[in-house]
């Protein structure tokens, strides 16, 4: 039995998440991944934005920074560049990372700064009551799209790959053991690592769209295909499926390491000149 309690601030419980929410499943997966990597609690700085999933940082016993809406990647960039010895893990939602924080998202990926980013994608703004998100599927109902959304949704993984992220993976809250490995891989990776996690908000996405919690979880299972299995499938079989697993991994120079080299070069030049 895994000992979650050693990583939790127990006085913060019960948590704010609704029954059936995916956030708790992902938090447990994250704690197991941290444990498997063997990181010490003092070595971890966890930074989050605003939204249901971003409240996670309050529940875990690390150096935790619960920032402003959409800005966790900006804060995390400051933490990592100022103190590279910290392992910086960012907790963000789909609205936080892809709407209000979209600019920070693409630029952090472009720099390939060594951050591990968990993007909790529940396709809605849960905390504010179910408004249209940049990830809400076209045609679905939201409180700001009561007659059905006409907006096309973002693909966070494609966006991250295009912007320069060097580790991009997708998991779901249904496949929690796969998720452990994807997060573990992201933490170990040196560079900008994105793990997009498809999860559900049965309260504010499921209910107005008349989809039960069971159906939401079943959807995560039925509509996703592991990247390895997908290699053996035809385009017809893959129609409408979402690919999970490690979608992209590249060896690119990491930003903080480049800056440390820059400092060394500048100082060596100054010494030589003196």
């Amino acid at each position: 039995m895994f000992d979650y309690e050693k990583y939790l601030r127990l006085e913060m419980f019960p948590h704010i998440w609704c029954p059936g929410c995916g956030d708790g499943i992902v938090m447990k997966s994250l704690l197991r991944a941290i444990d498997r990597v063997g990181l010490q609690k003092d070595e971890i700085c966890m930074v989050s934005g605003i939204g249901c999933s971003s409240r996670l940082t309050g529940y875990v016993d690390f150096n935790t920074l619960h920032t402003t809406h959409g800005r966790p990647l900006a804060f995390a960039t400051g933490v990592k560049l100022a103190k590279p010895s910290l392992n910086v893990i960012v907790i963000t939602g789909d609205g936080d990372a892809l709407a209000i924080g979209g600019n920070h998202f693409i630029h952090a990926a472009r720099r390939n700064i060594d951050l591990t980013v968990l993007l909790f994608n529940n396709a809605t703004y849960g905390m504010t009551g179910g408004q249209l998100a940049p990830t809400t599927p076209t045609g679905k109902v939201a409180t700001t799209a009561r007659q059905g959304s006409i907006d096309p949704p973002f693909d966070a993984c494609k966006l991250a790959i295009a912007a320069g992220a060097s580790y991009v993976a997708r998991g779901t809250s249904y496949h929690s053991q796969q998720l452990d490995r994807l997060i573990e891989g992201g933490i170990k990776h040196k560079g900008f690592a994105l793990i997009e996690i498809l999860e559900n908000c049965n309260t504010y996405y499921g209910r107005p769209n008349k989809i039960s919690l069971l159906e939401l979880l079943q959807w995560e299972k039925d509509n996703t295909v592991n990247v390895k299995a997908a290699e053996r499938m035809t385009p017809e079989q893959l129609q409408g499926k979402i690919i999970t697993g490690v979608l992209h991994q590249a060896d690119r120079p990491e930003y903080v390491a480049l800056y440390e080299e820059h400092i060394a070069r500048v100082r060596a030049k100054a010494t030589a000149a003196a």
Partner: protein
Amino acid sequence: MSTQTKSRQVKLLQGNEACAEAAIAAGCRFFAGYPISPSSEIAEHLSVRLPQVGGRFIQMEDEIAAMGAILGAAMTGAKVMTATSGPGYSLKQENIGYAVMAEIPCVIVDVMRGGPSTGLPTSPAQSDVMQARWGTHGDHPAVALAPASVREVYDETIRAFNIAERFRIPVTLLVDEIIAHMRERVELPAKGEIALWERPRPTVPPDQYLPFGDTPTGVPPMANFGEGYRYHVTGLYHDPRGLPKDSPEVVDTVMRRLMRKIELGTPDILKHEEVLLDDAALGIVAYGSSARSAKAAIRMARARGIKAGLMRPLTIWPFIEGPVADLAKQVRHIIVPEMNLGQLVLEVERVVRGRCPVHRVNRVSGEPIPPDEILAKIEELA
């Protein structure tokens, strides 16, 4: 020549360069910024200087990110700064509010240009005085300093760091474009002549540490991330441990302590200069480059036999209430020249409380206020 004087350097410096050099002298080792006139020289200078001293410079994707990045860096123990101008200062207000609430020391330089909106990108103004006080939402304390010469930019930048660190609060350096871009001969203080204040550090073991607890000064000690004091930082109202709480008692206690720590610190934060005020019958209250014009105007007035004097706040927020109240008892008239249509004058009027008439001299054309214009007002009232 004494050894101390020997180690002083005499330089021809631009205001923005003086700001950057002072930041290094104050111990700033992290700067995040975004290009904007007329402040860009600060970022340009620090992009070269910070790596030389082992510090870090980063150009972020926008003003909001620059503000966020310095706050993240400050949590690891670094002294941090960003620099901007009016439009960027507006964007930074979100995370300035976070810094107030989470009590993260930082310095924000706002080189004031004409607004609103894109306005006058390279012309001077003094129109962000109220933004420096009330720019972010919610009740909050604010500290802002306004230098009037290149040497003063140097000194006030260091003072901005000192106040930010000691009181765990964002401090704005309000420089107008004239001061930021002018070049003056400056004798810089020697290293030993610079007094530095540091943030209060915890003296208890981690299990007894209260990152947001009350203290006699109202300022809780601040532990750096990664040094064994694991704690939570949030922009939500929070208990002494930093954990989110919204009970009326907690909310009220936090808000009042945030205000109290600056009220208690005000004597150490306030700074002003008095010029020819001893026998003055007419007082001018002016800051930044307008104070330079005012200084010239009172000398011209005295040459004509009019006893005029100048009170010049270097600390704009909190306001120098005591000295201005005393001035109102002494003089028959007070004149407030500003490159806006009346911002700091509202504070002067509040403190004067009708004891004497308060007059305005304003320019919003992107031009400095010439001494003649202030002199004309003095002569009209004499």
